[in-house]
């Protein structure tokens, strides 16, 4: 039986082969959402980069 590779035990949130891993964060692109700011959970299904609107972030409440 072949020895298990060393170094990485497992990918936690990525189960496919490492060479199938793609970059998901467009670090040079900050223009994909103007509806969702500091989101704390509401669902905004239209927005490609976020799962919510910014409604829950308030200051003094």
């Amino acid at each position, binding site marked *: 039986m072949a020895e298990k590779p*060393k*170094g990485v*035990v497992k*990918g*936690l949130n990525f189960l496919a082969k*490492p060479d199938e891993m793609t970059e998901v964060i467009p670090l040079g692109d*900050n223009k994909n959402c103007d509806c969702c700011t500091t*989101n704390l959970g509401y669902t905004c299904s*239209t927005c490609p980069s976020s799962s919510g609107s910014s409604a829950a972030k308030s200051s003094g409440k």
Partner: protein
Amino acid sequence: MAWKTQKVALASMTIPDADQARYHQPYYLQKVHLFAKRGKKFAYLTRQMVALLLDDLGYAILSQSGPVTLASTWEKLAHRFSFPEMNSAFQTLIDWQILASHPPVSQPSVEEETFIDEEAQNPPSEIWLSLANDCNLRCRYCSAGYGRFGGTRGLMTEKTAARAMDLLFPEDPAKQKRDFANIIFVGGEPLMNYPVMAFAVDYAKRKAGKANRRISFHLNTNGTLLDEKFLQLFRENDFHVVFSIDGPPAIHDASRRFIDGEGSYRRVAANFSRFIQAVGKSRRAQAVLHYGSSLRETMTHLLDLGFEEVIPNPDYSSPLTSHNSAFDASALEEFAQQYDDWSVENVERILSRRWLHGNAHFLEDLRALHRRQPSRSSCGAGRSLAISAHGGIFPCQSTVETKPFQLGDLTRGVDLELRRKFIALIENLGNKCRGCWIVGACSRPCFQEAYSGGFLDDPEPTQRCKLYRSYFESAIYGYYLIDEAGCTELLD
């Protein structure tokens, strides 16, 4: 000594031809964050949003500074690991794109004037309406000057609300670029102004219907003025409501009091119970944590009260009130530890009840990890707009009535050049985050905090940055626990 024995073994060992080429080949650590928690070792690949569980060897290899070679690593770690193990680990780390033969590529800054110009021209798709520049509570940490924002008391009129809605739904259909719109009712205390809230809902629905756009209503409230007419409005219009409640009675009432000094817990808890009966969904709370208070106690109490998600926020210092329970840097570190401890307990709760509930920040990060999608997008201040009760237009709720950032008023409209400058300022602020390991999974700095904290000219991260990084490490560990239990489908 074992180390010397290993060295001798190496000296006499023949490196296979296949490995010779890369024995002295330098490898560079890519954009990755390493950390250890409760005896487990992790790597988080920023650009791929992938979290990995490492073994001791992988962690030891990656913990070296500068470019690494198999030869130099062998020199350092031969006393702990065999050469075949190390060789295997190097290959695995290369496969996972953590080590590469080139240095990490730095991303260019966002300086796209064209898109900023366009953003400044676009009508907002999200508007915050301060229905009341006033509040019926006198919370000791209030950062909004009891709803007045340092200005005068007042309630928004129907005319002002209608003009604000007109910003969201311009007459020219070509300008309505989004097929949705968000309206967020805030204050002060927005429930002080039922007539205008009901008017705005009706007005916005008619406008949205005419433009064939979806619309969603949100509300942040202290919950004390909730009555049947509000419950009906929320039920019929699918409101997303966030209650401000700080925890058990003694904790809540210590800060959140009526003008006469009486605590408000009994009222808000009773009204939340009515809300559960009448509306049911979207049971969210946000709680301000004070220095010395227990996050666990607050979370447990609010979840047991019936909230599905609780947003815990440490009490940052407030410029408009004076009190002594705000968190300083060391207290925030202690808070981060409490947050981390609660995360483990939160996972136990999730697993035992097979229901995703608990700390909203934590859940959001878990979902982001699971989907490998950014959860908190960049600050939308300026793209979204906040309207004060008096009709002033501001970039966000946190800047309402802050004159240097006023972008216009509803009589004269938005000053597009000021808006463009503000959006550019936000972009520039976001550029400071490019080296951060959680960029993409973070909202980036709150503009108001950056402004008041002097971060605009300071390259160092804010306290909130440090906290969010700590939050995300807790989420990665939480994800590990959920994965170990074989229950990641709960995050689907």
